[in-house]
């Protein structure tokens, strides 16, 4: 079966599952099933079938798993958001359409991601600019300065900066990787490359430190630093960068726990939430109670206890950072593990694409995107289950949040482009290769 036909089959399965999820939520709320609840599933499937058709024409050899996984995660997330607050689900649906639009634009305008390599410094500047803009113009919500208010929307530029910085780093590190992997001198017996090439590491460290101090957001700061360290490691295969980067970040983190009260609270709550059960630890404990209450199978979508009688969610921010707690509550351990595996499957496809990609830039770009996606997922899932200190960050495709879903759909578009090009370069016909060359 061709990749696109396989994708269509997966999409059909995703459509069935998402319609069932929505019908279940709808029935739980209104005690009936009607055409509206079925139309939702059809419209949702229509959007993704549209994207599928676009891929058929433009990127026929792109990976077959990514789009169906995206559709399934987004559908489950949307159903759960509808479950918690129907009005937000409508907005999220609109954001999904915007994201689909950006997906189409990315695919049609970029077509071949190798072009992006040429704009690497522009991308780097763009990413940096977005972050600086957030620091300067940002609004503080829940103690973190991550949002910019414009035209009545709250935009989270760091979600987009994440993509731009991965593109920049992939291009830059691919270019300089030989220089970076040859040590020119020793510091304390450790081989270290020339300061000139070592510089970017410090710049990146300062950047994530600035995010920690000015945005007071540990999660995003950790994400950016980790993306950088992972890409350095992949580019040079030298573990010393991991140790160095990790050490520098650990030092910054320890310092921030000591001096930034917001981060300190989060850290203390993580160590022992019980004394803070009604104050700073309330959210985390309610999250744990909600997850634990799910049991093995959960009460079913739309049937768990997630809202108080005044319609306030049992966990503050349930529809954004804590969407996974809601899902675990209603679908139980089985559903929660299924979603974790689905997210891991997405990450695996990203790495798979990286491994097969024919050139260094594509490899670093694909792996960088996969690391960004996987780590973001881990930070929030680990946070709501108290494996690591809680930091507010969205769960890709599932949390309520326009910026997150739009940026992550662009991320999918990039991965699909890389996988398509890999196939054409490795196995494509001469005609296909010539077309690729002409377009570039």
């Amino acid at each position, binding site marked *: 079966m061709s990749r696109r036909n396989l994708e269509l089959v997966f999409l059909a399965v995703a459509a069935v599952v998402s319609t069932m999820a929505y019908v279940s939520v709808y029935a739980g709320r209104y005690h009936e099933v009607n055409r509206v609840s079925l139309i939702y599933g059809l419209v949702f499937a229509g959007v993704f079938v549209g994207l599928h058709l676009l891929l058929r024409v433009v990127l026929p050899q792109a990976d077959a798993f990514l789009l169906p996984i995206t559709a399934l995660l987004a559908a489950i997330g949307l159903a759960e958001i509808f479950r918690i607050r129907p009005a937000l689900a409508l907005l999220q649906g609109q954001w999904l359409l915007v994201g689909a639009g950006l997906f189409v634009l990315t695919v049609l305008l970029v077509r071949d991601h190798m072009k992006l390599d040429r704009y690497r410094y522009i991308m780097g500047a763009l990413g940096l600019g977005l972050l600086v803009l957030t620091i300067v113009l940002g609004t503080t919500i829940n103690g973190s300065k991550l949002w910019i208010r414009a035209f009545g929307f709250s935009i989270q530029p760091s979600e987009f900066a994440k993509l731009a910085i991965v593109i920049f780093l992939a291009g830059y590190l691919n270019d300089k990787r030989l220089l970076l992997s040859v040590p020119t001198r020793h510091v304390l017996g450790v081989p270290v490359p020339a300061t000139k090439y070592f510089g970017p590491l410090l710049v990146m460290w300062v950047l994530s430190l600035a995010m920690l101090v000015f945005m007071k957001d540990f999660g995003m700061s950790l994400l950016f630093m980790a993306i950088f360290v992972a890409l350095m490691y*992949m580019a040079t295969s030298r573990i010393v960068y991991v140790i160095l980067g990790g050490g520098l970040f650990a030092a910054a983190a320890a310092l921030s726990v000591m001096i930034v009260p917001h981060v300190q609270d989060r850290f203390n709550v993580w160590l022992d939430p019980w004394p803070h059960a009604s104050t700073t630890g309330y959210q985390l*404990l309610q999250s744990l109670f909600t997850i634990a*209450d799910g049991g093995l199978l959960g009460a079913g979508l739309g049937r768990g206890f997630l809202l108080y009688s005044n319609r306030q969610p049992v966990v503050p921010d349930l529809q954004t950072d804590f969407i996974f707690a809601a899902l675990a509550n209603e679908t139980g*351990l089985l559903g929660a*593990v299924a979603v*974790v595996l689905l997210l891991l499957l997405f990450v695996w496809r990203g*790495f798979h694409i990286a491994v097969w990609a024919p050139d260094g830039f594509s490899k670093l770009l694909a792996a960088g995107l996969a690391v960004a996606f996987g780590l973001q997922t*881990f930070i929030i899932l680990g946070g709501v289950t108290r494996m690591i200190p809680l930091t507010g960050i969205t769960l890709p495709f599932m949390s309520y949040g326009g910026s997150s879903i739009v940026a992550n759909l662009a991320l999918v578009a990039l991965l699909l482009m890389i996988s398509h090009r890999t196939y054409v370069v490795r196995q494509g016909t001469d005609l296909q290769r010539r077309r690729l060359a002409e377009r570039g």
Partner: protein
Amino acid sequence: MNKAIGRLFVIGAVLFAALIVNLTWIMAVRADWYAERPENRRALAEELKIKRGVITGFDGSVIAASRRRSGYYAREYPQGALAPQLVGYSSVRYGRSGIERKLNGELTGQTSALSLENWADRLLGRRPEGAAVKLTLVPAVQRAAQQALKGQKGAIVVLDPKTGALIASASAPTFDPADLEDSWERLSQDANAPLLNRATQGLYTPGSAFKVVTAASGLDNGKVTPDAAFVDTGTYVVFGGKVTNYGGEVYGPNDFTTALTYSINTTFGKVGNLLGRKRLISSMERFGFYKTPPLPLPQGEVLPSGRYDEKGILAPDAFMDPLAVAWAACGQEQVLATPLQMALVAAAVANGGRIMEPYYLQEVVAASGNVLQKAQPRQWLVAMKPATALELNAMMQRVVNVGTGTAAALEGIQVAGKTGTAERGDGSNLAWFIAFAPADDPQVAIAVVIEDTQSTGGEAAAPLAAAVIRTALAQPELP
């Protein structure tokens, strides 16, 4: 490069595997442990699926009822904030309080008396329904009491002295239980403590209102008679200190009845020392001090009255010097009392010296219509001899007719009462009035306390008591 990419993926997969292990740990292994944590109120949510019984006033009007909203029952209050501190709240997030908490078993249909009916319900696949609870609280009187307190801080307790039935229990400032979940933060941090039930939890210096207890002790022990003669010089010097009158008044020669009528401190200080610490304290115990009044409310919602220090209530046999005894006899020193306790003091005089157990529960009716429980008035304590009660009754009538409590006099109804004004260090007063009426056949006993006032008990509290008594006696039926 592929080797490094592969290694990174392995690290990622291990992290995700750790997530799954942790999820299994939380959701399968430790699920029950989390469910049983006291901080976890989700179990209450299960009870939200049961139709909670209705709470009605003595006149049958609904105070709190449950209505189904999207699968769960939510509490509604058709009469607004009617005795919210006593009735309490039932919130998944903030737990329960007051009657909602104490009678949760009855209201959710989970007491043993209901289990047979529940069993039948389950067999038929019906959800159990809670029993209806009828209170002795009379909404009209309760509203009058709340109205009287409006804009002030304080409490009013109205009892039926012959049965102990609680007719009204108001505490101000108050709150609206309907939007508790939205306003919790503000309510729980408000310095004026609207959530506190001042009627049973508020500990106040009783001031001269306490002189009723001292007088009962003196008469009962034969240390003094209503016409015993005293001379007031404005100060009573004792044990290196002195007892003075409110406002620096000097009354000259007076008898004991006059001393109560005008609330002469020096005379009561002397009576206190005629009695001595032991007799005074044991009289207090006979009035219910040093015991938690048996009004069935959750632990901590009814406090005992007595002598307190910073650490809490003192033992009845704690040492007192004669100066302390003299001031305690005037309701000062370290004596603290709740409005409920002071209402019981008035009720004791009204009921010939016998104090009935205070109660608020008129009856419990199961959803099937079966009456599961009915109020049965029981005697709690004997505070004094019937003859003493009769003498005190006459003395307290004089307080209202010619003394400090004339503002409580009512047309056609003989009120008997006692004022109290406790001066606080900060220049504000605590105004008290305790009373019962009609004096020859008491139907109601009342205690009124107003915090942070510049006026005396006779000015600030007595008129409120009169208004509430008038409303109460105008009711077609009292418990």
